[in-house]
């Protein structure tokens, strides 16, 4: 697997001190099955915040 995010890091540049996602983290972001469950989880979290705000 390619080191997806690492190639953009520039030595001692602006982005040298941050973290970048690895290939698994990147794949999970668009994995439909995993994201379906995240969709439910995020919706629940948002509804809780919405309910606390009204």
């Amino acid at each position, binding site marked *: 697997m390619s080191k997806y995010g690492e190639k*953009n890091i520039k030595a001692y540049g*602006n982005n040298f001190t941050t973290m970048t996602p690895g290939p698994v983290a990147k794949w999970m972001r668009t*994995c*439909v099955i995993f994201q*379906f469950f995240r*969709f439910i989880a995020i919706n629940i979290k948002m509804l809780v*915040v919405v309910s*606390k*705000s009204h």
Partner: protein
Amino acid sequence: MARLVVLGGGVSGHTAATFAAKWLGSAHEVVVVTPNAKWNWIPSNIWVGVGQMTKEDVTFDLAPVYAKAGITYHQAKALGIHPEGNETSDKPYVVIESTKEGSAGETENVEYDYLINATGPKLNFGATPGLGEGSELGEHTVSVCTADHAVHAAHELDKCIEKMKAGERQKILIGTGHGMCTCQGAAFEYIFNIEHEVKKAGVRDMADIKWISNESFLGDFGVGGLHMKAMGFAVSSKIFAESLFAERDVDWIIGAHVNKVESGKIGYELLDGSMGEEEFDFSMLIPPFAGVGLKAINKAGEDITDTMFAPNGFLKVDANYGAGAYENWKASDWPSTYQNPTYGNVFACGIAFAPPHPISKPMSSPNGTPINPTPPRTGMPSGIMGKTVAHSICDRILKGEDAPLHKASMAEMGAACVASAGKGLFSGTAAAMTIYPVVPDFEKYPGTGRDTDYTFGEIGLAGHWIKHILHHLFIWKAKLKTGWTMIPE
């Protein structure tokens, strides 16, 4: 019969007017004064700006919706408030000027018992030389602040992509066009949607994409940044944002006050006092916001604008405007009822209320130029404020003038925010975030200022789905279709 006049038909004003009309029924009158013929779901302008939606997808005609709701609708802009009436009458009124085709320029006085100022902002392009004149966008950059601006932006972006396809390298510069801007989130969404579209077009290697903003650190977003629970850590939004910028190969300039815009070039001043220039082929810079310039006149005809409004043109409400230095700021400085302290029947909500101070730490360059984000008052908080103010006014109309006011302080409410990072049913991503509360309360939540049980963020396809669903859900709600009251703000 009492009359409630709402100035502005954006998220906050529309929410206030429609709920007030529902709660008051036909026994009382609700009047909306807005210069626009169409309602615009502004968050989706980002997708219009990259050609993934049309203007028609994000707007609809207001007149039939207000006719259905029993709301009197004036397509006009408000010029002034006369909260004490005039020499011949004690009845307060607003002076409005029609913007409707056929009657444009005609003025009229509209009396009120209660007034909600929800005008939103003046897009103050004129604050930066070359960015525009007054509230008009200039010729050098584009904007996504209105649907029409976004259509223009998409057209210019298309030209830029065509040049890249023809082998011409392009510099794309996105961010804020002044040291005192807010709405970094919109620019954040736009830059990543552009990056996504450029990649889709197969010309990512021909684009140098750069961010410029007045934030002192990436991920400030005008709320002083936030800490989100992730992987067992409370992670700063700085890490979160920088990570995304690194991943998408987007460079950045921060702590920048753009002080000049010319054809293909901007000038800026940084927090360290140094000056710089940046060239571009395509640029979208958010303008600073100001009040719309309403005047206030007392019964004797004297100008009392300074009494009712803050110097930036936003309406004073029940905030603590004397908090002073950053070290003295408290969550309780923030307003909760949005009632004007001088005139109890006048309220403000959404961007139109004057915040007590920024949320981000105020900073300035050694030259004395203030460079820090001003506080956001859009989206979910804006809708909640509108509904709260409408609730208070309806209670006072229906139960009597002593009815207690409802409260909704930004220091006690949260917000859900979905920032698109690219559109696509299976390829899109968005940063889904919640923040609680919007204004940090360092006494209640020592350290981060927020409850990290309810402040989180993650990037993924699920966020994109939510953003897309919210687009349809909020337009459904704004059109007052079946079940609209069940959809939260």
